[in-house]
């Protein structure tokens, strides 16, 4: 509780510090702090990088953050520390850092041995917060033995205006913690279902700007935009293939929603499914061999898996009357599950039966896993407004991202940045 409050105050300070520069920042609120995992203390760093690192590590649900104020008098990068004082920290590791002309240096010290376990130099970047995220990634990888996914991005949709004719839809790209948001698209008509290309440079999305739905791809750096599918009926649910050359999508051009694979280079559509039911929300497995999708061919929406080249689908989910909107990373599948009348986010292992529900809202949807599968971002409602939540896959840590200016929805977590 105490730690929680301290983190809150640091986040508040950070929010204030960056409020002037980015008015549209999502406001980050920690709703659940991990009290399990590796106890770690991040010593205060000039410029506040320690608070960003703390917040990152906390989000993963794999660390127990010890207040950085306890390490105030041993914060100097590279300086020797007495083993006795290290042990007093109540943490397994102490992280210290310094800003240099070249960037940010961090070191990880074991409080047991008193030795520096590892150190890193993060080269300068225009986006200063990314230095801290990259440092957090290094620390995470060293201690958890999994690649860190803090230096990543989110794309999401915001909606302002209540009346239909007053609504403004925007597609934003922001850092994974909601900072540095940039508008990549503004439209008076609905924008839906953003999906990242696997190199993180492009986004595919559905736009109704022509009156009927069409799928576009857009480069997030140059803004260059291309309409890739505007067939009769539904053009929906684009999902980029791991090799970057194809989009899986749902089209109703043949009468009812079926899955297709569109080859971007030549515009060729290949139909994958053939059922009288709804087939939609395709998502590729990381090896590019399979597609997991939503279908109500069994009477209710459930997840199915099929070869990306076509073939017969196999049912993936059996529990519950509503399972949909899968996002797949490695062997993890995040999806929407109806649980006693509420729609929640569940995570399951591919090839296994059980799933754990990791959210607790009534209208949770659009789950998207971090590229290392340790966290999931999803859309939820708080006080009647659309907000985003990030929860660790083990459910230990949770944060919410509010927009000051309206509803936020349909987050998609980027791949690792290159």
């Amino acid at each position, binding site marked *: 509780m105490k730690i929680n409050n301290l983190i809150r105050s640091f986040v508040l300070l950070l929010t204030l510090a960056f409020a002037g520069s980015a008015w549209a920042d999502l406001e980050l609120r920690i709703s659940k702090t991990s009290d399990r995992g590796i106890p770690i203390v991040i010593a205060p760093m000039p410029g506040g990088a320690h608070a960003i690192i703390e917040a990152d590590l906390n989000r993963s649900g794999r660390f127990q953050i010890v207040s950085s104020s306890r390490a105030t008098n041993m914060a100097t990068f590279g300086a020797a520390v007495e083993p006795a004082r290290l042990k007093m920290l109540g943490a397994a590791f102490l992280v210290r850092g310094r800003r240099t002309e070249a960037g940010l240096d961090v070191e990880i010290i074991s409080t047991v041995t008193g030795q520096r376990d590892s150190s890193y130099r993060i080269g300068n970047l225009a986006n200063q917060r990314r230095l801290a995220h990259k440092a957090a990634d290094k620390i995470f990888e060293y201690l958890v033995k999994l690649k860190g996914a803090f230096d990543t991005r989110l794309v999401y949709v915001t909606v302002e205006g209540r009346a239909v004719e007053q609504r403004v839809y925007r597609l934003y790209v922001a850092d994974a913690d909601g900072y540095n948001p940039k508008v990549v698209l503004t439209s008076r008509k609905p924008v839906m279902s953003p999906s990242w290309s696997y190199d993180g440079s492009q986004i595919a999305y559905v736009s109704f700007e022509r009156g009927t739905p069409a799928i576009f791809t857009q480069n997030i750096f140059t803004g260059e935009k291309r309409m890739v599918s505007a067939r009769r009926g539904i053009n929906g649910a684009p999902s980029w293939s791991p090799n970057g050359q194809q989009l899986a999508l749902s089209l109703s051009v043949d009468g009812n929603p079926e899955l297709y694979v569109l080859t971007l280079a030549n515009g060729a559509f290949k139909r994958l499914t053939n059922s009288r039911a709804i087939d*939609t929300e395709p998502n590729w497995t990381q090896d590019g061999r399979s597609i997991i999708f939503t279908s109500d061919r069994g009477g209710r929406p459930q997840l199915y898996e099929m070869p990306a080249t076509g073939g017969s689908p196999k049912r993936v989910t059996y529990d519950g009357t509503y399972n949909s909107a899968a996002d797949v990373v490695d062997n993890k599948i995040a999806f929407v599950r109806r649980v006693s009348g509420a*729609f929640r986010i569940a995570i399951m292992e591919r090839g296994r039966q059980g799933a754990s529900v990791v959210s607790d809202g009534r209208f949770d949807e659009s789950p998207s896993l971090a590229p290392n599968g340790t966290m999931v971002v999803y859309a939820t409602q708080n006080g009647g407004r659309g907000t985003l939540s990030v929860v660790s896959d083990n459910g230990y840590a949770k944060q919410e991202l509010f927009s000051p200016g309206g509803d936020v929805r349909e987050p998609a977590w980027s791949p690792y940045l290159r």
Partner: protein
Amino acid sequence: MKSMKWMVPLVASVLVISGCSQMQQSATGSGATAGGQQTYGQQAADPATTGNRLATGSAVGVNTGGAGTAARSTSSFGGATGSFGDGRGNLVGGIGGSSTSTIGRDGVGDGFGSAGGSGLSGTDNRLGGPGNYKVTDLNDPASILSRRVIYFAYDQSTIEPEYFEILDAHSELLASNPNLTIRLEGHADERGSREYNVALSERRAQSVKQFMDLKGVGSEQSQTVAYGEELPLDPGHDEAAWSKNRRVEIKYIGR
């Protein structure tokens, strides 16, 4: 959901057939001859008939053909002459282009299956004169044509009988004015995932389109757009709001 999909043609065919039998009854009752005019709002007036039709209607999917009890009479297709119950399913066969359209009961179901009922008689197929409704009625707030929203039950795309009257009126106007075009905008409530809701809202728009196509509206006169849960009429988060948001809106293009 499979069962639900079957419900669409089933319910609509019941409707068409019962509508027709109504006409037959009223024609007999008044001694009137074929006039291309439909009796509105009485589809369920004769429960026995409706029930009966429902039973026959359920044979739709299995191509039972045999002669039904419905007599040959004016159909509800904007005045086209039709004969019922000969089981030939000409709707599918595409003979719809001829001036006499023969509607087998199996044909009704199959017509639905053929996505948009393109085999349905063209607009030149209507022998009847213009119906009761004029295009200018669209601007009359007192006209039934001012009612342009059809609401649906949760997770359903079947049209509730209370909307038959509205849809009949629009169908008649459209059938007698082949240059009029509409957009059928399908919507869903906010529950569940967004793209699935897009698909669900398309099903709703399609059932309205199929209803109208069977009433003699040219298939090319209406197009559907599925908005899913993206454009709620009521932004609330309770059943009162949801029931307003599960809808199909009829939009006259260029008007």
